[in-house]
């Protein structure tokens, strides 16, 4: 494959040492600083970030969080000795695709046996969160929901409507584990888990899997006549990470939305598959995507029909809240439901006009902020 617009612009190295127990992160930091010094680039110029190592067994967003990097593209370069070359190749893809202009690719090792042989996320949670008896993600999202309710007057009726409408959609989805009718009263009366998060705000963990297949346009034409194109996609990693007083009620989806809607108009989207680990997360994403102002999500939800028949269809198969969350398949469920709708294969819950869908994924509730990882894409059916 011939590259058209990718160049190497600089590098940074650290001293090497035998059996140093210096933390791995301090090696990373020194190497990045050297590269920034050489190139004159600033920390905020770094848009893409990749880590290749065997000694910090953790996801690259967590490593980036420790370094205070807010990003548009992130990669775990876990390809062993090929990691240097393969990271370059993947970053080149991202640059050619226009996702980022500057990517920093790191490799490193240290014999530090203490903190960063542990997973950075586990370390942070174990020492500063878990010791207080928190309730896991339910508590961390409860903190976000309370802020939203108190700051903007968002009500439980408005938040509950999201769960209730998704249940109506799920009743027409044979894959959904939760298909019993659910009223707003059922929602409000459900058991308190971590106030204000109730039982019916939470997903039900389950087993299952989802799969998505991509192909080149040319190849795709020989496979199907139902062509669904990936139109545009974006991500924001560690939104507000180096801000010690972050706005808990705005997700990185705000940045993602700005990128997506640079390519497609907001009113061109027919249906929304928004990652729904909690109803409040759906409400906040509707705001962050710009369908209403910040703080007006409650009103928006109250005055629109979110069902598959409605004027603003959201999670047309019931979402994770009613289908169930099969671990990390949860992030694929939304992609697959969007494909069903755009291919007119959604049966009784088919959205009438389903040409363009917006799909999001959010993950990892972070210390003091909200979501560590956020991403979105728009897909389009073309004849």
């Amino acid at each position, binding site marked *: 494959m011939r590259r058209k617009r990718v160049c190497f612009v600089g590098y940074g190295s650290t001293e090497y040492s035998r059996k140093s127990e210096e933390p791995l992160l301090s090696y990373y930091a020194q190497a990045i600083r050297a590269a920034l010094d050489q190139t004159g680039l600033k920390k905020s110029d770094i848009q893409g970030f990749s880590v290749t190592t065997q000694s910090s067994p953790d996801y690259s967003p967590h490593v980036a969080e420790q370094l205070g990097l807010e990003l548009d593209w992130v990669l775990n370069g876990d390809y062993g000795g090929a990691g240097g070359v393969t990271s370059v190749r993947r970053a080149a893809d991202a640059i050619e695709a226009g996702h980022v202009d500057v990517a920093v690719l790191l490799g490193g090792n240290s014999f530090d046996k203490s903190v960063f042989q542990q997973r950075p996320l586990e370390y942070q949670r174990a020492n500063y969160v878990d010791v*207080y008896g928190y*309730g896991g993600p339910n508590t961390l999202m409860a903190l976000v929901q309370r802020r939203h309710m108190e700051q903007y007057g968002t009500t439980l009726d408005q938040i509950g409507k999201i769960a209730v409408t998704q249940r109506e959609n799920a009743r027409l989805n044979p894959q959904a584990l939760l298909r019993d009718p659910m009223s707003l009263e059922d929602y409000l009366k459900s058991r308190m*888990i971590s106030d204000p998060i109730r039982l019916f705000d939470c997903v039900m963990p389950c087993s299952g899997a989802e799969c998505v297949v991509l192909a080149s346009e040319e190849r795709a034409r020989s496979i199907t006549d139902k062509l669904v194109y990936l139109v545009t996609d974006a991500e924001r990693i560690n939104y507000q990470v180096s801000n*010690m007083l972050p706005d808990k009620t705005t997700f990185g989806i705000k940045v993602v939305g700005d990128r997506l809607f640079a390519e497609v108009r907001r009113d061109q989207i027919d249906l929304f598959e928004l990652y729904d680990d909690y109803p409040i997360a759906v409400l906040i994403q509707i705001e962050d995507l710009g369908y209403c102002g910040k703080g007006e999500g409650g009103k928006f939800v109250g005055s629109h029909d979110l069902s598959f028949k409605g004027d603003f269809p959201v999670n047309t198969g019931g979402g994770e809240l009613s289908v169930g969350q099969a671990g990390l398949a949860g992030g694929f469920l939304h992609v697959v439901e969007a494909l069903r709708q755009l291919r007119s294969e959604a049966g009784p819950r088919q959205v009438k006009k389903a040409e363009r869908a917006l799909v999001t994924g959010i993950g990892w509730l972070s210390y003091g902020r909200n979501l560590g990882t956020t991403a979105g894409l728009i897909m389009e059916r073309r004849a």
Partner: protein
Amino acid sequence: MAEKSLPKINKIDQPFWKGAAEGKLLIQKCRACEKLQFFPRVVCTGCFSCELDWVQAKGEGKVHSFSWVFVPRNPAFKDEVPICYANIILDEGVIFESRIVGTNPQTVKTGAKVRVVFQQTASPEIKLPVFELAG
């Protein structure tokens, strides 16, 4: 039988826990760019400097958000529910996740002023910084 979670103290955050044991709330300050940060890290999230000093926070702040936890992730905490888990904004300008003690669901409000107290854990050397309503 599960035990209540305790921090796994390491060489990076050892000064923080030593401070807590002595009744001091320490946060990190970057020597290069003067940024304050919490939780403790190896690297300044503002400028990648690894030269981080520890400074003592006053231990006062206000409640930014809170949740009454009825189902703790670690079941060993069940005997304490509901637990008031909170985000506190310290006067120094950083968010601190902790617990508010000695109160009940009727009296905790966002914006309430709080101050740190240090709670003895099952380990004789470890005290946890928690917060109580300040008047």
